[in-house]
């Protein structure tokens, strides 16, 4: 990063002893912060391979001292039907993503690139929903899904997934940043608006859709409360809800097996994050500026 030539502090500042001392102290605090952030994650990983006796010993220690019990993962995998729940989560993720691309993507394209009457009013109609706190209509939302007969079906996730003003905003500002010459060239060549959208806008928007895909994935992976309200049969639960119902509140489950299951649930998002950091942090930045 070029900005490191100087920040708040310059090279000259480091010649002063008290600046050096305070800076050193701050670095120490940052190191402590990093350890605090990583400790719970690694301790979950290590607890997953301890024997049940060791994980229950007091005071607990960080690293496994006996042998590493990899068989905990097999036991955890078979404790509840994880593959079924995993499939449900993926089903929700894919459907939500399709809704985001099709419904939100088209609307964002329209707001950004197409002629619309009363554009301001229409934007207002969409963006106002950002400012209404969702918990205030949590229960009506549930009743509404019931009125529509969508309870206990995945449509209850897929269809509302298109109603996300925040994603709409992100997509719209991305489309705004594309060069309009591309679309004009397309139109001159006789492409319809649909073709412009499908063959110019969508391919150019892979980065923003990747960012959104990660957001949608982490929501699908994380959301436990809403599915527990909407879904009534155990077989339909996504992973997070199943973990909440059968693992978080389980009493008879051995602690090391519990940690092995938690590890399996925790690793996929960590891997996704480490692989796609660039998109995530870029998206955060976008979100931060736009609120």
């Amino acid at each position, binding site marked *: 990063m070029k900005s490191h030539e100087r*920040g*708040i502090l*310059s090279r000259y500042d480091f010649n002063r002893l008290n*600046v050096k001392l305070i*800076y050193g102290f701050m670095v120490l605090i*940052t190191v402590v*912060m*990093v350890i605090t*952030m990583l400790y719970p994650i690694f*301790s*979950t990983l290590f*607890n997953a391979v301890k024997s049940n006796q060791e994980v229950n010993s*007091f*005071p*607990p220690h960080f690293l496994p001292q006996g042998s590493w019990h990899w068989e905990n993962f097999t036991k955890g995998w078979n404790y509840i039907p994880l593959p079924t729940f995993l499939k449900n989560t993926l089903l929700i993720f894919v459907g939500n993503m399709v809704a985001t691309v*099709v419904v939100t993507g*088209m*609307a964002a394209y*329209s707001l950004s690139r*197409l*002629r*619309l*009457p009363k554009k301001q009013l229409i934007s207002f109609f969409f963006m106002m*929903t950002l*400012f*209404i*706190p969702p*918990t205030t*209509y*949590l229960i*009506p*939302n*549930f*009743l*509404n899904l019931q009125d529509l007969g969508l309870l206990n079906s995945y449509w209850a996730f897929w*269809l*509302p997934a*298109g*109603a996300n003003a925040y994603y709409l905003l992100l997509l719209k500002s991305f489309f705004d940043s594309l060069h309009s010459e591309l679309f004009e060239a397309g139109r001159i060549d006789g492409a319809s608006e649909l073709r412009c959208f499908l063959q110019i806008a969508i391919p150019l928007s892979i980065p923003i859709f990747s960012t959104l895909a990660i957001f949608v994935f982490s929501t699908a*992976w994380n959301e436990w*409360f809403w599915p527990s*309200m909407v879904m009534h049969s155990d077989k339909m639960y996504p992973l*997070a809800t199943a*973990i*909440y119902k059968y*693992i978080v509140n389980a009493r008879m489950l051995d602690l090391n097996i*519990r*940690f092995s299951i938690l590890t399996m*649930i*925790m690793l996929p*998002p*960590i891997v996704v*994050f480490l692989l796609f950091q660039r998109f*995530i*942090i870029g998206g955060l*930045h976008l979100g*931060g*500026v*736009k*609120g």
Partner: protein
Amino acid sequence: MQNSTLQVQPPSEVKKSDSGLTRWLRKYFWGIAFLLPAAVIFILFLWMPIIKGFFYSFYQVDFVKGNTYVGLDNYKAALEDPVLLKAIGNTLYYVFLGLLIGFVVPIFFAIMISELRKFQGFVRVSAYLPNVIPLVVLYSVWRWFYDSVGPINGTLTQVGAEKVNFLTDPSWSMISLVLMETWQQFGAAMLIYLAAVLSIPRDWYEASEIDGAGVWQRIWHITLPSIRNLIVLMFILQLIAASQGFQSQLAVLDGGPNNATMTYALLIVKYATTRLNLGVATALGVMMFLVLGLLSLVQYRLNKEVN
């Protein structure tokens, strides 16, 4: 068509008034066609529930017998509930703790990390990593951390201190939840601040240094004022988000011990799930809307300013 005067009229004008709509349609066809699915979805799944909330709050909701109009009874029942005051108090306490523990931390670390010459990327990733831990894992792991035989109490006994009942002691339970959530969430806020801090032009520091400003003066008079609007916006956002908090309270402690973590939003959920009185739950939601709506208005204004 019945009389001949029509035929006398220049045909072009008839055609013109006729083509007004067609022209309007031709002009806006694609725009509207692209917007239509989203408009329908937004109405069905966002605006309908929002409006229905007001409607349901005057009804007794019964899945079997159908809904009956009860006037203001739901509101009366909600206001007469002895837990309500406690829930409002808990929510305010939760918001206050969140700001006390969680608000300054990301600003502090953003400024600190912007000054790191090495390992900045690593520190950034580590600070954000807890954010990607699924909530249910967070709850489960931290329950063990706070356990009387967990690692925190283990360390406390090793250094000879008293054990703390982080979750079962009502004076600690809310603090424990806020610490847990701060651990998970501060990284995201930190990265947003960090981006703002890094975008401050370096020459400003250079110039002020030449003018003899010390390090603290530079932070106080340049760094913080530059991100002032962002700080205010994040403050409001956290205020709104925290006032709606219920998930960790529900998952980790189910509102206990002795309603010590029963927040307002959790009370709504409890009315809908265990007390099975959805009318009162929606009435509580409407009352919450009236209060938070004001905050949202402030946020709306600020948002415009920041952009």
